[in-house]
């Protein structure tokens, strides 16, 4: 299958998974929010959050057995760069109340102006960062 077909299929699965969480549990499938709640002291509803993350991990484990190259990267990434990126993504998604899933799919899917703006901003800044980085280092 072409990357485009796979991308649509993958997207359909993601949309379906997010809709299931909404239709059955009334919850937003925003992964940064789900994880943020897991590490927040005094958060009472940790069981479903943990179960969702476990689902991601079991999916990843199955992929590792069936087609490991799907979750491995060929890019050599500087460990310092990864740590800085992780900190920015963690701090930024906590501050901006969402990431690609919460704002990009669930938020835009319900026509939220907040999420539409957040998504335009993070995709725009992401494009800018990637472009600048390639210009400086010729790609990492």
């Amino acid at each position, binding site marked *: 299958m072409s*990357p*485009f077909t796979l*991308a*649509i*299929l*993958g*997207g*359909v*699965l*993601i*949309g379906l*998974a*997010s*809709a*299931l*969480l*909404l*239709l*059955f*549990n*009334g*919850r937003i*499938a925003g*992964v*940064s929010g789900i994880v943020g709640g897991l*590490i927040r002291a005094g958060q009472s509803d940790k069981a*479903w959050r943990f179960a*969702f993350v476990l*689902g*991601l*991990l*079991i*999916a990843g484990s199955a*992929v590792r057995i069936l087609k490991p190259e*799907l979750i491995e*990267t060929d890019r050599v990434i500087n460990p310092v*760069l*990864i*740590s800085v*990126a*992780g*900190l*920015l*993504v*963690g701090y*930024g998604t*906590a*501050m*901006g*109340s969402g*990431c690609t899933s919460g704002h990009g*799919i669930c938020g835009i*899917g*319900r026509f939220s102006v*907040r999420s539409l703006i*957040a998504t335009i901003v*993070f995709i725009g*800044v992401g*494009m800018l960062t990637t472009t600048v980085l*390639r210009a400086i280092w010729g790609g990492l």
Partner: protein
Amino acid sequence: MKQVVLSFVSGLIFGFGLSLGGMTKPERVISFLDVTGNWDPSLMFVMFGALVIYASLYQVAKRMKKPFLAPNFTRPNRTVVDRPLVVGAVLFGAGWGLVGYCPAPAITSLPSLKLAPALFVTSLLLGMWLFQRFGAAKP
């Protein structure tokens, strides 16, 4: 208990969707973000596919009094576009563009037992904790 099982199933399908769609490959994400370079638009279709399904089923949810398993729908409590939303999105976009991982794909890639996702998720959690501890407005 049913809600916890449903969450697990949702996470499972979500993780397979990310892997199948190519979101778990940072090089693909970088090629998608690198619009002025060798642009690979295919990941746009992940978002497109997800949005069509989610937006349609959201219309179903909107007409329901309550979800199938929970007493009510949990709604986001903020509606205005404020500074934290935009500044947070800028920081997130910068981190995403540096390496090509966002939260869900990095977590899904943890079972590969490679350094990149493990290091990313560790610092992701630290970043979230830092905001919760020092960045969030005190009530």
